């Protein structure tokens, strides 16, 4: 039996006080106190009447580090970059280094057969216990030939790794919903994890990239409670994806007041007015950007002056265009189609109209003027 996390930290010289502080950080990462409730937690907490920090402490004291296997397929590695380039190393770094142990292609110093071998070993050793993290979409067209690692298709690799996973976290829009590769016409047949793996619990942490804290918070949740947080219909944790960007946006008062930036860097934009007219998809985008923000709470796209792209929603690349209004239709009739429609109307109208006009000319058998009373 491996050492518990607490014990490992103790070995490294972390004091009890610092450990409890760390537990507080983890509790915060899970986001339970600030954000929507998690199924089951409140009941249990009520029964035991103990604060969340103590829950976390108990878990970290009794459980060993969480094995994590991280696979990348059709991706840009942006989600990994976001995690590792995080401005606040403390939280993310601690979660990744203290709580988990992993096989990660991008981060591994090793390469080729060695790293493949390490992965196979990890999958065997932690069978049934590891968290499989998937980044990037899976190519399914033409037997998945468009994405191969070590000569094997991403489809194969996913199925193999999913077989022994306790749960799967699809991080980033690509692994959740297909992402950029899935944009029309989707030549590689890109799909998200949940559309392929249906016999294992899957959590989607979409975003382009996913907010690092959303990912780490979900990991921490799994560690502490041994289960996945409450998910919405798109398998996203309600903690982080329970409200729209619009509902927490700092520019919302300007939306309500009808003060919009009409173009980039115009007077309104400089005054921080709402970016709805510039194509902001905030109203239909469920994500924690506006509340948790990025780079450790530094900022998020709207705050920095760019409209929300809707990157945590399915098919946002085909969502009408980043600068087209959120309310605009996804498919517009082009001039040719309208022309044909109008021409059809004219032809039909003229046909019926002329037939009607001819009917008008038909003589009427009218009564003779009456000659007597």
């Amino acid at each position: 039996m491996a050492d518990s996390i607490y014990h490992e930290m103790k070995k490294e010289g972390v004091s009890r006080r610092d450990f409890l502080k760390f537990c507080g950080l983890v509790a915060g990462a899970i986001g339970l106190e600030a954000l929507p409730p998690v199924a089951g937690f409140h009941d249990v907490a009520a029964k035991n009447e103990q604060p969340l920090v103590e829950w976390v402490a108990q878990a970290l004291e009794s459980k060993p580090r969480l094995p994590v296997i991280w696979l990348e397929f059709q991706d840009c590695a942006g989600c990994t970059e976001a995690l590792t380039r995080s401005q606040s190393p403390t939280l993310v770094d601690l979660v990744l280094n203290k709580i988990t142990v992993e096989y990660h292609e991008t981060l591994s110093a090793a390469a080729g057969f060695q790293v493949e071998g390490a992965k196979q070993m990890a999958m065997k050793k932690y069978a049934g216990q590891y968290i499989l993290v998937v980044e990037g979409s899976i190519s399914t067209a033409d037997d998945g030939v468009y994405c191969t690692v070590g000569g094997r298709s991403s489809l194969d690799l996913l199925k193999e790794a999913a077989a022994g996973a306790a749960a799967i976290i699809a991080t980033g829009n690509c692994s959740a919903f297909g992402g950029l590769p899935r944009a029309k016409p989707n030549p590689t047949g890109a799909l998200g994890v949940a559309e392929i793996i249906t016999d294992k619990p899957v959590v989607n942490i979409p975003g382009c990239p996913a907010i690092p804290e959303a990912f780490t918070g979900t990991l921490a949740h799994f560690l502490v409670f041994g289960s996945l947080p409450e998910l919405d219909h798109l398998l996203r944790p309600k903690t982080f994806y329970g409200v729209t960007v619009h509902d927490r946006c700092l520019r919302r008062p300007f939306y309500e007041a009808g003060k919009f930036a009409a173009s980039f860097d115009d007077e309104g934009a400089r005054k921080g007015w709402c970016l709805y007219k510039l194509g902001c998809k905030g109203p239909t985008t469920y994500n924690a950007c506006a509340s948790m923000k990025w780079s450790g709470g530094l900022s998020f796209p709207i705050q920095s002056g760019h409209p929300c792209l809707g990157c945590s929603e399915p098919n946002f690349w085909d969502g009408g265009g980043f600068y087209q209004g959120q309310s605009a239709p996804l498919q517009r009739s082009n001039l040719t189609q309208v022309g044909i429609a109008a021409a059809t109307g004219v032809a039909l109208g003229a046909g019926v109209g002329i037939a009607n006009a001819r009917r008008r000319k038909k003589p009427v058998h009218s009564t003779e003027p009456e000659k007597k009373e």
Partner: protein
Amino acid sequence: MEAQAQIAIDTFLRQTGGYVASQLEACTRCGMCAEACHFYEATGNPEYAPVWKIELLKRAYEQRFTLVGRAKLAIGVDKLITDDELLQFSKIVYEACTMCNKCSMVCPMGIQLGPLIHEVRAGLSAAGMVPQDLMKAVNKQLEEGSPLGMTDEVYESRMEWVADEWEVDLPMDVKGAETLVVFSSIEVMKFPENIAAIAKILHAAGEKWTLSQAGREVVNFGFYEGSEERTVLFLKRIFDAAVQLGVKRIVVTECGHAYDALRWTSYNLMEVPPGIEITHIVGLIGEYLRTGRIKLKEGALDGRTITFHDACKIQRRGGHIEEPRTILGILAPHSFRELSPNREESVCCGGGGGVIAIKEADPVRYAAFELKIQQMQRVGAQTVAMSCSNCRLQFTDCVQHFNLDVKVAGLSQLVADALIEE
């Protein structure tokens, strides 16, 4: 398909060009037109709603000229028009509509319901579905030249009597006269003093005018009936007389629908002889006052509260709205009171459009007149003046029927009585 219904439908369709069709399409079934109809307001009968009055026209149009209408007919959601329905609508359209066209002013889409109801009458007339009383009057006009039986002889003798009784010169069939004056038989037979009054005004203005034996009747019962054929027939009598006498102008005396028929409809029904201006006596009097051809005693009628009833076909549909105000402004600057509403928004007397000629319509005609009574009572009118003798007939009959204490006066009479003779 029932025989008469087919005739009616054929007529409706014949009349339905872009003018009719675009307006039938514009209707949103909002029902506001009913609020403007004095017959609906007086009785509360929803069948008097103007939109319902054109229902047959709409059905004929939809069932033949629109795809949706044809489909509904084919699957049985809509039914063909029946002879029975023609009869029902005949009652509504002839007895409970005076063609006053106030409904068009209330319609949010501005639909000209009056003209559309006229098209309904055209279809009913072609199918022979006209109330008996009205048809009797039409036939009388056909055979005797006037619905009130004002034959050649009757006219001649009446005119002689008026000339004698009021000592006024009534030029008859004067070739080369400038103006042909055509009276209505209502004036000749019921309000003969009007003849004398108008003659007096014309003489005072130095008008070169004449009457015509052949063109003696300005009333047009073919127009009431809605028969284009008979409307034109009666109009032709007047135009022929005008051409024959070589006049440059025709003056319609105190009659409303005659002005509508002659001035505003004839050109679209027939070849109207060129170079002949058509005007109404109230417009002519206004012109005389403006150009100083006649002068009136100021304040001649002050002392009794006097009001003016706008005739639908002379004011709202004729445009001679300010002339009566000018006249009464001179005659009763202190005692004149406007009814409310007035001018183009005024309330119809309830007797026009042929209604007063139909006995069965009496109850509803009297009910409608109660609105006028309320209007007059609100301003405390002791005298009510008007420029249409059909209105005058209605007012006179109703004043008697309701035992009212109000004097009914023709505007021309008031003018004639106040002329300053030189």
